[in-house]
């Protein structure tokens, strides 16, 4: 039942009667919301429904605040936004090619695309 890229929150989601499947895992997510069978009818916040984690959400908010700053502080704050690391997943004891991410958090979050079908 869990799809190939099993997001760790899925079992939690199922408890609350919504099926959310993630394809590709990284930036694009297609969200399928089944109508709630049983469980809570509490509205999940829009960003959670779109597949963002709290961390992504707070990063977007932070970069929005940083872009509101005026000039000398703006460049200082821009240095706090630089993201760089090389991550590589391992499968069967072998590493795959590392994906190098040199980007600013704002760029990543602004290219976040989501399709919500109801």
């Amino acid at each position: 039942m869990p799809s190939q890229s099993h997001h760790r929150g899925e079992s939690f989601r199922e408890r609350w009667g919504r099926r959310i499947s993630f394809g590709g895992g990284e930036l694009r997510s297609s969200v399928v919301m089944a109508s709630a069978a049983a469980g809570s009818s509490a509205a999940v916040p829009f960003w959670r429904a779109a597949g963002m984690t709290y961390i992504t959400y707070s990063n977007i908010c932070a970069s929005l605040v940083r872009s509101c700053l005026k000039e000398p502080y703006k460049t200082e704050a821009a240095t706090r936004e630089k993201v760089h690391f090389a991550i590589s997943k391992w499968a069967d004891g072998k590493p795959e090619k590392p994906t190098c991410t040199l980007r600013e958090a704002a760029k990543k979050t602004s290219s976040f695309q989501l399709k919500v079908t109801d």
Partner: protein
Amino acid sequence: MAMTALRREGRRFLLSPIPPNPSTAARSTMLSEDLSLLGIRSISTQVVRNRMKSVKNIQKITKAMKMVAASKLRAVQLRTENSRGLWQPFTALLGDTPSVDVKKNVIVTITSDKGLCGGINSTSVKISKSLYKLTSGPEKETKYVLLGEKGKVQMVRDSKNSIEMTITEVQKNPVNYTQVSVLADDILKNVEYDALRIIFNKFHSVVSFIPTISTILSPEVVERESESGGKLGDLDSYEIEGGETKAEVLQNLAEFQFSCVLYNAVLENACSELGARMSAMDSSSRNAGEMLDRLTLTYNRTRQASITTELIEIISGASALTG
């Protein structure tokens, strides 16, 4: 000038090689004899001099590395102490229970990318391995997520199949929260976990780094534990804004907690790495200094022995002439 003339005179009278004095040979093992065309052996100080030069260079380099590490440490230490305030409220609210028994464990080991920093990476890896043994059992699954080149190299040797992800080049630019939170997000998206255990070296002072384990539970496990009472059992008595359901609040809290604790852990480990490098380079320069002293003594002995030998040759040659 006169010495060289005498030396030349003395050499002309020596047709047969002088057997080296066994006591001098035993005394200074750095004696090197080169046979010249005339069959004359002369004691050379070249080897000792070369060694002294290289040891002196190494001493300079290690001293410089120590200074660099000390200056970097000052800056990172300030940020580390400020970041401690991020996770302390979480521990006050949710507690830190390393003894929790869960099915899926993920061990996040934080090590450095660069070497020459003493034994901190080896201790972290050792603890990860023993934690792995501790948390494995029937129906249980433990995986590694490794930050840092040094940890990856050590783990690959025997635990290749339990590695889930490796992350390097974290310290290329100065560490900021955004970077670590993106990293935390990637980790959360790609691993399934019931409990995350972060292993890092906590920075107590320039000479003491304590390996520490921080445990972060997934929201379901927090629910389960809160039902069984204890610190988490009081969670219901709090009125929490920002979420409609308890489970949703716990989800947000768990993600944010992981991000904050990881940020603090990366900073503490960076501090410990710099401190360990400082002390390693310091002891290295001290050793180089001692080595240099010993080599200087040997050099002087060799030099004086060669001068004495020259004198003996000259005098015996002169006395052979007159006598």
